[in-house]
Every structure is written in C-alpha cells, then in structure tokens.
C-alpha cells in the first residue's frame, strides 16, 4: 500500500480583508467623538490668601489696610470700599483706580455672596493695577 501525502494547494498570495477593521476603527472614532466632552478653556486669578504668619503683613502694619468688602445689601451683592457702597462693577473699577496701589488690597467676602462677585472683585482689583490682592474670608 502506498500512502501518498495529499497535495495541498497553497494560495498564491495571502489577502487580508481590511474592510471589517476599517469599520471598527470608524465606529471607535465616532464613539470617542460623541462621548468626548470638549472642555472650555480656563484661566486663573491668583489672589494670595491671608497667611497666619505675621511677617507677611507686618511691613504694612503702619498703614491703614485697604479692604474691599463684598456683601449683600437689601438682597443684592454690593461692594464696600471704606465708606463707599458701590452697586455695580463699573463703579467699583472707577473707585479702585483712585486707590494707592503699592499697599495692596484685601478682598473680604461675606458668606452669602455668590463666588462670581468675589472673582469679579479680585479681577477688578487686578485690572486696576493692584499687584498684591489678598483674599480674606469674612468671619
């Protein structure tokens, strides 16, 4: 008996069907495009916090500190600068320009004021030319 190895016919060239892979790739692309939440750009304000160390504010102890208060008056957030009560942002910006800048400014916010107004006060101080803006939480 003679056993003969069956002759296998090899294909001349191997072809790989890429269609399914491309489908899958596009599906993944669409999935990630749809599921991605494009985050909006952010910027930052850098108010220095009031530190517990006395040296941080010791040098300016002889001067009257300039304090910008943010609080509610008759239900609306207002800005208080010394004896002045400023009802809007424009009035605040005008008042801040007049202040002496090298002393810096303390921003103090009451607990019931929206954070947006606090950030607005800090931004207005920066825009007016204050290099040193210190945030002080109100008691």
């Amino acid at each position: 008996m003679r056993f003969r190895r069956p002759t296998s016919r090899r294909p001349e060239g191997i072809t790989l069907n890429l269609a399914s892979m491309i489908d899958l790739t596009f599906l993944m692309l669409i999935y990630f495009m749809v599921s991605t939440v494009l985050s909006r750009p952010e910027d930052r304000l850098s108010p220095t916090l009031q530190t517990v160390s006395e040296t941080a504010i010791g040098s300016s102890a002889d001067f009257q500190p300039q304090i910008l208060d943010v609080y509610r008056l008759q239900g609306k957030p207002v800005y208080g600068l010394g004896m002045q009560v400023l009802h809007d942002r424009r009035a605040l910006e005008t008042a801040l320009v007049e202040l002496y800048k090298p002393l810096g400014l303390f921003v103090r916010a009451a607990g019931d004021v929206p954070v947006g107004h606090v950030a607005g006060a800090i931004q207005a101080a920066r825009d007016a030319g204050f290099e040193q803006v210190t945030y002080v939480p109100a008691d």
Partner: protein
Amino acid sequence: MIDVVFLLIIFFMTTAQFSRLTRADVDLPQERGEQRQTPEEAGIVINITRNGELIVSNRSVDLRELEAIVRAQIRRAPRLSPLDLKLMIRADRNAEAARLNQVVTMLTSLGVGSARLATEVPRMGSGR
C-alpha cells in the same frame, strides 16, 4: 487615512480621560483671569459646586477629608514649604462664598500661602 483616523482616536481617548480626571461640572466665574506666558501645574484641584459640595479628583469630600488631602500633599514634598503648594480652586460662580471661605480658612490654618481661583474667559458678546 487609517493613520490619521488612529491619531484622531488616540486624541479623543486622551482628552476624554483628562476631562474626566480633573474637571467637575462647575460653572466658573466669567472673568479674564491672568494671562500667563508659561503654563503652570495646577496641583490639587478643589471643585466647589453650586450647592457647596467639595469635589477632589472626582470624589466628593467633606472639609476634614480635604484637610487630610492637603496635609498629605504637604507631607509628600518635605522640601517644599506649604507656602509654595500649588492649589487651584474651581468654584461655581453661583455658589455661596461661605464654602469658599471655609476652604480658605482651612488652607491658611495649614500655612498654605496662595491658591488660584479658576475663571472662564468670557465668550465674545457675553456680558459679565
């Protein structure tokens, strides 16, 4: 074309991961902020939501837990003074400042010298 598609997939996968890691759903104050030439490391990001909830690394924490996180961060870098600790506060513009005040009081008690307040650059035509 397949190369480009793969690049796009990698881009979207990466950005999706980042936004999930650091950003909570917070409506930031609409302010210009300060334009820095060199981007700075954000450090610890403290999110304060509209209802005063504190979120750090996508986890809701209370003030005591937040204090522990900041303490751990200070301990992790013994050469660094708490005054130099990088910290960013992302507070919702409609949240009450009471929560922000609590966080700031806690930070100052730990000796943290400064923090940055995240803002969103107003879009063209949007009022303050």
